[in-house]
């Protein structure tokens, strides 16, 4: 077991070193953009909307932006950078010539993608705290949820990558899955305002469940009754990881 984890961490540390080398630009993309949304929509739209579910609109939006950024951080690296490592740099081929297998690579990558989510979530939480949007220490409980979110969307992104033959392929996933999911998961407005059939569809996807757990936590409330929602991203994480391992085995070991 210790040996297995050591192999996963070897992959994780390779990606962590690569990230450190370009951290400045990486941070700008993963961190500045969500903050622009938070400011522009939070204050701009917030001045019309007033309060939502008993909190200021920007407070409401903070939980949504936090969830979305966690998703995006893992998704984009799991699509574009993982594909680059696999097909362009042939980093995975080099790793497979060492005593590691496909499962080690996928597990190491998923852990790294979740770490990317954690970095993004931590930064946004810090800024939100600086702006006085998060006041309670209990909000730190958001971070493990953000990590689970990263496992879920990182694994899904790798699964998409396992089917990709070029970067163009990712447009389908982003346009047809990620973007509608952001709009229909209660990020910008309460989920309950959506019509019943749409809610049913969106509830099959993980993001809505993440938002349901993160929103009370950002407000400093731990609602144990909401925790079952985490089963959805956890199930997606396990399912997508297993499927991705199977897919990459067929693709790379042929």
């Amino acid at each position: 077991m210790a040996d297995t984890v050591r192999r996963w961490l070897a992959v994780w540390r390779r990606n962590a070193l690569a990230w450190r080398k370009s951290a400045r630009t990486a941070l700008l993309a993963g961190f500045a953009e969500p903050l622009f949304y938070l400011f522009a929509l939070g204050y701009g739209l917030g001045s019309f909307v007033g309060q939502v579910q008993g909190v200021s609109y920007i407070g409401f939006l903070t939980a949504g932006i936090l969830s979305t950024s966690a998703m995006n951080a893992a998704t984009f690296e799991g699509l574009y950078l993982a594909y680059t490592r696999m097909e362009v740099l042939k980093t995975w081929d080099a790793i497979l010539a060492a005593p590691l297998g496909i499962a080690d690579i996928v597990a190491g990558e998923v852990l790294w993608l979740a770490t990317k989510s954690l970095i993004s979530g931590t930064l946004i939480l810090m800024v939100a705290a600086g702006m006085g949007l998060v006041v309670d220490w209990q909000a730190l409980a958001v971070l493990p949820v953000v990590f689970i979110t990263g496992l879920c969307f990182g694994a899904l992104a790798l699964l998409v990558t396992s089917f990709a033959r070029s970067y163009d392929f990712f447009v389908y996933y982003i346009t047809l899955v990620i973007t509608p999911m952001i709009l229909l998961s209660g990020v910008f407005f309460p989920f309950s305002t959506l019509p019943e059939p749409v809610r049913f569809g969106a509830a099959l996807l993980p993001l809505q469940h993440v938002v349901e757990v993160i929103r009370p936590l950002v407000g400093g409330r731990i609602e144990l009754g909401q925790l079952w929602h985490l089963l959805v991203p956890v199930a997606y994480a396990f399912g997508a990881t297993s499927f991705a391992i199977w897919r990459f085995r067929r693709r790379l070991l042929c």
Partner: protein
Amino acid sequence: MSASSLPIIQAHGLTKDYGKLRVVDRISFAIDAGECCGVLGPNGAGKTTTMKMLIGATPPTAGELRVLGHTVPRDARAMRARIGVVAQSDNLDPDFTVEENLRVYARYFGLSAAEVRSRIPELLELASLQDKAGAKINQLSGGMKRRLSIARALLNRPELLILDEPTTGLDPQIRQAIWQLLRQLRRDGLTIVLTTHYMDEAERLCGRIILMDGGHILADASPQALIRDRIESHVVEVHGAGGERWLATAPIGPEVRRERAGESWFFYGRNLESLVRSLDEYDDLHYSYRSSNLEDVFLKLTGRDLRDG
């Protein structure tokens, strides 16, 4: 029988199909410790597929394979901890320096920090990259990248080194340097298996040649034995405009084997002096008279048709 006297690689009836296409067809061979074996063949001979099976990168359709006593692909991971692999195209990490490349790769083998600290300077020296430890990969020449790839494959002190076309695409001087490095490793007792389609490379480096074509092994012997046993001792190569005219009267005995490739004729035999003398009168013909080499063996056994792909 002690473990050390077992062959390093034992392949029996090794077969690989891709769909209906049989790429490697029931080949068997054994490679002993300390050998340097060159796997030769035209494009599509099955060399690279055989190498991929050896390192567990693709499962055989049929047959048995043991490398260093491990059954492959079942125990491929444990086997790979004990071998070094140099891929055809360098897959170094361009984001990292030379030293970081080695350090990151050492983690995949679970080497201790102390071991890595002592190993890296040794390997940099072996690859003549001492001054480049902090250089980025894209600042290195093709030859330096190749030497680094070889150094990286030696991090775990492998008992077997596998190289897929180690000098393809490199300048002649750089190829010499790579050969020198490989010869040194061979002297140190490392078992080496490499694929190549350069005859001079195979002849200089390898004590043994496995010649493949169409998924079969056509010959398996030392370069000297191949030249001695599989081809006539001498060859005259003739090309030029007056060829047909000369050919009509040329003294070509029945023991002389002849082949034609494009504008050139090749005459193989033991005693070709009279043939060479007859060429003197034809100023418009160019010819060379030499002893046969590995390339002649290769062309005899695999044919002269051009193969693409």
